[in-house]
């Protein structure tokens, strides 16, 4: 399976925030998107996730499952917000996403308890999500990546609000995902501690 972006550009207001972005990623490869604030990293990820329309260019999947029309149907998107309900317990949140998203062809998600253990927070799944600290909430949002299988992970500042230990833990999760043939596209300021990765430097508005 290969992901191909060809000449992507997107508009923010009047101007193009980025222009002619192209890359190709195979199974087990990662792309780290870097650049200063406001350079369009989040916009690029939202375009890839199908949440924003690209001004021009195409983002497509090659050699994926036949019934999949868009790459975003095979993707996890971890944005700035955690997509978890404060009123529900962690377990209710995770098992909802597990059942609602289902697994993409080619893999299966892990149990909610195992996912909580994988992010180092086993034993607090009975608490309402709103009771958790910012860092714990972020870790639980990462556990969401594990409960439903998606080959492509789109991560927007995944390690914001995390301590050094969680950084390492997260790098481990990403590495494991890559080893199983997954694809990761991450926008970040900090190095994720990943091995061989492609990188993409965003520059900001092009007039």
């Amino acid at each position, binding site marked *: 399976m290969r992901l191909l972006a060809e000449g992507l550009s997107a508009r923010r207001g009047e101007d193009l925030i980025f222009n002619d972005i192209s890359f190709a990623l195979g199974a087990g490869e990662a792309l780290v998107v870097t650049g200063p604030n406001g350079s369009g990293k989040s916009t690029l990820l*939202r375009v890839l*996730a*199908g*949440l*924003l329309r690209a001004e021009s260019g195409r983002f497509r999947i090659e050699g994926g499952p036949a019934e*999949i029309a868009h790459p*975003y*149907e095979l*993707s996890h*998107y971890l*944005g*700035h*917000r*955690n*997509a*978890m*309900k*404060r*009123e*529900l317990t962690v377990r*209710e949140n995770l*098992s*909802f*996403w597990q*059942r*609602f*998203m*289902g697994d993409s062809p080619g893999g299966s998600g892990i149990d909610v308890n195992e996912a909580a253990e994988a992010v180092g927070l086993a034993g607090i799944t009975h608490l309402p999500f709103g009771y958790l600290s910012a860092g714990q909430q972020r870790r639980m949002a990462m556990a969401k990546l594990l409960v439903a299988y998606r080959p492509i992970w789109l991560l927007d500042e995944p390690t914001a609000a995390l301590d050094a230990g969680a950084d390492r833990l997260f790098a481990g999760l990403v590495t494991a995902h890559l080893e199983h043939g997954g694809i990761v596209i991450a926008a970040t300021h900090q190095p994720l501690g990943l091995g061989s990765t492609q990188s993409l430097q965003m520059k900001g508005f092009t007039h």
Partner: protein
Amino acid sequence: MISLFFRDLKLSVRAGGGAMIGVLFFMTVVAVVPFGVGPDLNLLSRIGPAMLWIGALLASLLGLDRLFQAEREDGSLDLLLMQETPVILTIFVKCAAHWAATGLPLVIASPLLGLFMNMNELAIGATMLTLLAGTPAITFIGAVGAAVAVALPRGGLLVSILVLPLAIPVLIFGVSAVYAAIEDPAPFLPPFMILMAITLFFAVIGPVAAAAALRHSAD
């Protein structure tokens, strides 16, 4: 999809969910009418069905703006839009859950409030039946308004204003069906069938329009 239905149901009965707010508002509106109109029992029983319907309409508009806004604020909306399942179906299920949490309690509370208005059994039964058939339409229409106003920080009143003109036919046919049931010469079925037709029509159009609005409101 069933999991989405039960999640939304669970959310609306937990703290801050607002399922009970609609019923309380409904009760407040209907309970003050006898004080305003005075103790004329004949008048009350005559305007009762209309008052119940107006109260139910306003109460069901009350929580609509949160339908998608709450999802958007915590980022869940992005994930709901990204799935392989059609967005239209997701919205339909959300509307169904919203109606079960806010519309159904109104239907259940209406007989009690009918007693306040000195309505007889037939009028109470007819009102309950028309509310059951008509309030889903208000939710489906409201979903469109909620989707259009999803990015606005205080879109609550805007949603009501956008939605109200479209909800007027529901009110007209709901009330006229009740009056047809209690006043002899007019037949009950034609207005009631039109009411059900409106509900079915908006059950299709509403999710489609809301899906289009949500797709384009992504910033």
